[in-house]
């Protein structure tokens, strides 16, 4: 697994917790424990996303990354990656 994939994996783990807590709070808006946890994960996600985007390009169109080439560059989410095996050009 490449550094890009490892970092993306970490973001996916944190972002999944965010999806789950956010949805839980829809039907449990008074649960302060869940709300605190959500805040914690959001801070973690922001830091990791910032790190990822500075190295590998934007994860969403709203991110302030002016490098349009990094947005269009492969891999797209459905692409197979063999980055662990072969080095690919990512730091555009």
């Amino acid at each position, binding site marked *: 697994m490449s550094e890009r*994939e490892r970092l*993306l*994996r970490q*973001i*996916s783990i944190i*972002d*999944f917790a965010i*999806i*789950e807590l*956010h*949805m*839980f709070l*829809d*039907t*449990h*808006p008074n649960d302060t424990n869940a709300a605190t946890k959500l805040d914690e994960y959001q801070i973690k996600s922001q830091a990791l996303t910032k790190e990822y985007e500075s190295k590998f390009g*934007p*994860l*969403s*169109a*709203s991110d302030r990354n002016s490098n349009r080439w990094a*947005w269009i560059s492969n891999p*797209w*989410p*459905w692409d*197979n*990656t063999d980055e662990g095996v072969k080095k690919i050009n990512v730091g555009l």
Partner: protein
Amino acid sequence: MWVYEKKLEYPINITKTNAKLAKMIITQYGGPDGELGASLRYLSQRYTMPYPELKAILTDIGTEELAHLEMVGAIVYQLTKNLTLKEIKDAGFETYYVDHTTGIYPAAASGHPFSASVLQSKGDPITDLHENLAAEQKARTTYDNILRFCDDPDVKDPIEFLRAREVVHYQRFGEGLRILTDKLNSKNFYAFNPSFDKKCNNRP
């Protein structure tokens, strides 16, 4: 509105193609209990939901279903990459191939194209939430049926993730239904439409 994130909700990296499996899994893209129907169902029903918790839960689950649609598309795409004509024939994939090559098309396992007739938006929150509870269970059963044919961990793993999400969504819809009935007159839960018959909205 929506903002696209250039990543999957759960990672998918399938290295072994399997057209036979792809033929089954495509049903969760555009079949009767698939992710496209799920997202359209919830995102359409949410407009007439009477309480904010319900508007939120339908918006958020409907949005997650779009992420699942993308995942199922990625699974089918990777399962059918670089197929040879012999592999297509051996897998019985030629009926799909002749119409779509290996493009991702919303259809059921039977080949029947996606139809909005697989979903309902009734404008009655009790009716709609019950439909959604059933829909989550139908999707869960479909994933269980798919899992019986999966022996590749690269495929099994994301399918098991999708299956688990159906169970969580069922739980959230159940809570949504309880939030709704808690606000209604208990004598009239199933006799009126709380979004239309205004007088039954309040508890006695």
